[in-house]
């Protein structure tokens, strides 16, 4: 079960929009640098697409390192483009807990799961056309249900399938340890 403010975007949000390439120079380990990923998360999205349906609502305010939004709601092919793990990392660093999209690019989805950054839910319908940025939404993982508490609407999510085991373990290392692939 998770609950938070929704941030809504469109289709084919590629990794350059999630975290522009010029910021990839920062360390993902040093605290004073890694917070920059939170600051610049989603900053590559053109203004009109930032925080639908309104636009011009940045994910992270320019004076902040954390976003007020914790659940990203997107259309199709979220995270297409590069293989940069910096993308799910940046969303998590900003405080993101989950993404709900109609579909994902393969590498982003895998990175989100294997690194244990956030949960990539797939929605059965285009939830990003129904939810507005700022709405309070809750996700019930067991029921596979997203509830828009602001409007009362409910939306079905697809089962997590194969990757549920890795998500449950925490990340792919824990999963590999539990399955005996890495010595503990």
């Amino acid at each position: 079960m998770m609950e938070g403010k929704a941030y809504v975007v469109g289709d084919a949000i590629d990794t350059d929009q999630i975290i522009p390439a010029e910021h990839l120079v920062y360390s993902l380990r040093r605290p004073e640098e890694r917070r920059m990923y939170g600051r610049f998360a989603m900053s590559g999205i053109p203004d009109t697409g930032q925080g639908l349906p309104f636009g011009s609502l940045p994910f992270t305010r320019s004076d902040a390192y954390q976003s007020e939004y914790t659940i990203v709601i997107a259309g199709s092919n979220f995270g297409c483009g590069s293989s940069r793990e910096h993308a799910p990392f940046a969303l998590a660093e900003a405080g993101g807990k989950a993404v709900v999209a109609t579909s994902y690019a393969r590498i982003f989805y895998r990175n989100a799961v294997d690194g244990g950054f956030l949960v990539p839910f797939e929605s059965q319908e285009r939830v990003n056309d129904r939810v507005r940025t700022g709405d309070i939404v809750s996700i019930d993982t067991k029921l596979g249900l997203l509830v828009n508490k602001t409007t009362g609407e409910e939306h079905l999510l697809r089962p997590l399938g194969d990757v549920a085991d890795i998500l449950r373990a925490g990340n792919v290392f824990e999963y590999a340890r539990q399955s005996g692939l890495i010595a503990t």
Partner: protein
Amino acid sequence: MTITEKILAKHAGRKRVAPGDSIWVDVDILMTHDVCGPPTIDIFRREFGQDARVWDPEKLVVLPDHYIFTANHHANRNVRLLREFAADQSLPHFYDVGTPRYKGVCHIALAEEGFNRPGSLLIGTDSHTCTSGAFGLFSTGVGNTDAALIMGTGKIWLKVPETMRFVFDGALPPYLMAKDLILAVIGEIGCDGATYRAMEFDGEAVYSLNMQERMTLTNMAIEAGGKNGVIAPDDVTMAYVRERTDASFEIVRSGQSARFHSEYVYDVSKLEPVVAKPHRPDNRAMVTEVAGTRLDRAYVGSCTGGKLEDFEAAAGIIKGNEVAIDTFIVPATTEIGRALHSTHVDGMSLYDIFEQAGCKLGNASCAACLGGPPDTFGRNMGTEVVISTTNRNFPGRMGSKQASVYLASPLTVAASSLSGVITDPRTVLV
């Protein structure tokens, strides 16, 4: 089984695999670069210990290429971190910046240095790792976490993909290049048309291409969401590989009974020069539909369009003319950079052709293909309209998110650089 399924089965130690199977496979080569290498190393140490050793130094290839010629001190630190790691782990295949070993763009360097071996399994921390599949191997891009797990164990879990087959029949006309073929495919199936799937390229027109052009096809598999792109090896592949490595390998081809998810057949003689309009690689238009669009700059470079073949094609059009707009020439690798001097068209070197035409020549690296720090060569800084031989045109990809990028073949880019508007190469090719 398809070529992809056969390679995955072999590396999983199984007789058979089927699409949808989740398997652990042994990795033959892991490649990383300056953007994803340092965070991968951090995770490797976090998970396996500060003194951990990589699973097999012979199998790890480290190629700094992304942010090389910049004053950005964080970027330079990343190259330094790779250098320290390579020294600490005694890595034999580190191609350091500022040394004669420096190569440039990783995917082309892997080919040139003989790491693309038919039948093998190659993983890289870069989405365009699918490029290597041109050599009849399985290759795909992963993130830092997966790469760190490979660094420690030599293994990765993969889901066996279904295979989509793309057959190009006929003889390629002189005004078309591999870039036109792949842009046509992506335009047809869309940016997610091959998500979770393998893309196998086949047909007479594909086998008539040299290895550089074949790499353009597999390179952009990821722009359709593909997990890997692959072309079965032939004599052309063998000749290229044998020149560059003594390593043993095994040739694998799709079997008679291979099952494909779908098949697309093209008669290349009927295709036309294509562009991808802003801001998506699947936003296809015929060059004739956008001809006359005003441009601010032209860019020839990257792992897609910065190979020797690409510069030869561009030089054939540019020779003896002056460019009308800022035109950037960036060889993918130092080997290609040297070849610009030693390769001639009608007695003139490619380098001289570009220089006399007023082009701006840069050093081998990824350069403006992915924007990068503000001092990156050729980077968009404002509202430029660009025609480029690179592979992505999402907002901000080449620097500024106000800029507009058209993707096209080197022939179309060269023809457009002379007129300053999008120009059909058929109007200038004699």
